[in-house]
């Protein structure tokens, strides 16, 4: 579904990511974990096309998308949930969800029913402006918005950031349901132990802009193995 091969990314003249090789198979849930400032958000933005790569290739669903913009990648089926939620604060909940309709343009099946089923609070708050929702509700809205267009791949940047622990558990469960019921492939970056251990089927560890380890489900069950790469 998604392949990054020998990807290098810089901010101006400062290199951030080096030799990144990542593979995500169809319907898989893959995590990328690491401490603050190791390049997680840079990596997810490069995946999404919000940052250009210096060298290397990114293929998505069999096509080379290395030089395509974020809008084209979204229309091809990438649904993005940015760090800090980034809902459109002056649009209503319903208008925010409508923004997701452009994602995966080739697929006409909009997932309003599923989204309102996963996140019933969004039904109640349909006409409320998104900026007035709580942090957790905004995160649900950001996930719902990305799901509306029925994306092939969901790309999440720290879904637990700024969200209270009980809501984090709900979000983890909801994302597992999405993966199982809608068959959506998921890639996420995270430094929250609970999310990494309970959501990822496989996880890459990133440090100083490089992939330094890959953990399968057996090692993900071990708290020690995971916390080695997190600021816990």
């Amino acid at each position, binding site marked *: 579904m998604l392949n990054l091969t020998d990807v290098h990314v810089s901010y101006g003249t400062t290199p951030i990511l080096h030799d990144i090789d990542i593979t995500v198979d169809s319907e898989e849930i893959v995590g990328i974990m690491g401490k603050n400032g190791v390049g997680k958000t840079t990596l997810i933005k490069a995946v999404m096309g*919000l940052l250009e790569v210096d060298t290397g290739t990114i293929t998505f669903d069999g096509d080379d998308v290395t030089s395509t913009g974020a*809008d084209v990648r979204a229309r091809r089926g990438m649904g993005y949930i940015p760090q800090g939620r980034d809902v459109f604060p002056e649009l209503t909940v319903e*208008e925010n969800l409508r923004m997701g309709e452009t994602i995966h343009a080739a697929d006409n099946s909009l997932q309003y029913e599923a989204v309102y089923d996963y996140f019933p609070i969004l039904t109640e708050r349909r006409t409320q402006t998104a900026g007035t929702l709580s942090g957790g509700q905004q995160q649900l809205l950001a996930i719902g918005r990305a799901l509306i267009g029925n994306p092939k791949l969901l790309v999440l940047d720290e879904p637990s950031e700024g969200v209270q622990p009980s809501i984090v558990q709900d979000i983890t469960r909801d994302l597992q349901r999405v993966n199982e019921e809608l068959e959506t492939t998921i890639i996420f970056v995270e430094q929250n132990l609970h999310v990494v251990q309970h959501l990822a089927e496989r996880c890459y560890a990133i440090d100083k802009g490089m992939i330094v380890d890959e953990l399968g489900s057996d090692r993900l069950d071990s708290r020690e193995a995971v916390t080695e790469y997190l600021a816990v």
Partner: protein
Amino acid sequence: MNGYELLNVTFQFLESFAFIVLATVGLAVIFGMMGIINLAHGEFILVGAYATTLSAHQGLPLPVAMLVGVVATTIFGIVLERTIIRRLYGRLLDSMVATFGISLVLVQLTRILFGNSIDQVSTPFGAISYGSYSYSLYRVLLAGAAIATLLVLYILFTRTAFGIRARATIQDEETARSMGVDTDRMYMSTFAIGSALAGLTGALYAPARASPTPEFGSEFLVDAFVAVVVGGPSVLVGTPLAGGFLGLIEAFFTFQWTQFIGTVAMLVAAIVMIRLLPDGFSGLVESVRTSWRESE
């Protein structure tokens, strides 16, 4: 004040309201939605007025000539956006200097191409007479055009997918792009709409004012910028409220004294409003909404 005088001041108000709203909408869309202060806004109106007038002189019926004026200004705006303006997004001062330069060039170019003035198109519909007064029916009907323009803008920006995407792009361009929105095209479309609105203003006022001159557009600039500041950043909320408020002040003082006093009163009112409401009417409405939500 007798009935005729009341009717007269009402017509005066409708004319002022229409002038302020129509002078402002194009500028407000480009500023409010894109953050570009278009100092060539008056010359966009000029393009609309000249294209309308010259088309009418070629024998086209006035409504068709007006359509030509709007289309010509829209195309002109798109060409300018693609060649110059798009390089200046996020650079407020640079864009002001560039659009001021464009304004100077256009005024002089118009003078070179068409001379100091061109023949006016006659004002349609004649006049309404009442008591010892009479008023141009066309100028009164312009208020209807202003309200229709605001309604179309309201529907476009709140009820259509395009409008939702345009507002989302203004709020957070990167996230809008990651939702599949071609933000580059969105900026171009929004600039084209602002240009079309300026062209519409030029087209509507071509038959309503004296013979068009290269300075035709500058007659609209003061009202447009004052209304944008008094209205605040929201086109849909600020423009009609600013048009209504400033139009009322101008109409009342013009009726009581002279047109000059009316204009001075409007400017004084604008200064007071800026002091009292630094975010304009939009800011006031937003703060009322916020406190209403909090009280809920």
